[in-house]
C-alpha cells in the first residue's frame, strides 16, 4: 500500500467551490492566527519591561509595514471568527442545507471584509 498518497480532501484534483475554499481558508487563517498568538505574551513582556519598552512597542506597531501585516491578521481573525460561528451553528444541526451553507458562506465573506474595513479606518 502506498502510504504517501494524498489524504482527503484531495486538494490537487478537487474542483474549487465556495464551501471547500472557505473550509481551507478557515484552516489557513487558523494557522496564521496561531503564529500571531505569539504577540500576546510578547506584548505583555514589553509592558513588563517598563514604560520605555512599551513606547518602543507602540513605535514598532505604528510602522506602515507592521500596520499592513496587522490588517492582514485582522482579516484572518474576522474570517476565522465568523466562519467559526458558522461551524458552531452546523454543530447544532442548523443551516446544513446546500442553499443555507452557501448563504452563510457569502455572509462570512461580507462580515470579514466589513470588519477589516472598519479596522483599516480605525488604524489609519
Amino acid at each position, binding site marked *: 500500500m502506498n502510504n504517501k498518497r494524498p*489524504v482527503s480532501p484531495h486538494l490537487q484534483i478537487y474542483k474549487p467551490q465556495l464551501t471547500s475554499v472557505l473550509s481551507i481558508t478557515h484552516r489557513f487563517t487558523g*494557522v496564521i492566527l496561531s503564529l500571531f498568538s505569539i504577540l*500576546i*505574551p510578547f506584548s505583555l513582556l514589553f*509592558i513588563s519591561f517598563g514604560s520605555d519598552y512599551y513606547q518602543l512597542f507602540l513605535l514598532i506597531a505604528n510602522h506602515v509595514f507592521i500596520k499592513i501585516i496587522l490588517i492582514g491578521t485582522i482579516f484572518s*481573525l474576522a474570517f476565522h471568527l465568523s466562519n467559526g460561528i458558522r461551524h458552531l451553528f452546523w454543530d447544532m444541526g442548523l443551516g446544513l442545507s446546500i442553499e443555507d451553507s452557501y448563504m452563510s458562506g457569502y455572509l462570512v465573506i461580507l462580515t470579514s471584509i466589513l470588519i477589516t474595513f472598519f479596522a483599516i479606518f480605525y488604524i489609519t
Partner: protein
Amino acid sequence: MAIFHWKLQRISAILLVPVVVYVTLYLLNIGELSYADVVDDVSSFQSIFLIGFMALVLFTHSSLGIETILEDYIHDTKTQSLLVNLSKFFHAILFLLTLISLIVIKGN
C-alpha cells in the same frame, strides 16, 4: 479521546468569541492609552485571572487546531507525533510566558 478533542475545540471556540471581540477593540484603541492606563488594566487580580484563563483557552484552541492539521497532512507517524509534541511544548511555553509577564507587571 477524539470526542474529548472535538468537544474541547468547540467549548474553547465558544469561550473565545466574546474575548476576541473585546481584545481586538482594546488593542485598536491602545494608542489612546498611557503606559499607566495599560498597566492598570492588566495588573488587577481579576484581570490577571481573566487574561491567564483566556490565554489558557486560546493556546489550547490553537494547539488542538494545529494538532488536527498535522494529523491530516503529515503521513509519517513518527514525524507527526514529534511535530504534535513540539507544537504542544511551544503552546505551553507561550502560556507560561503570558503568566510570568502578568506577574512581573503586577510586581512592578
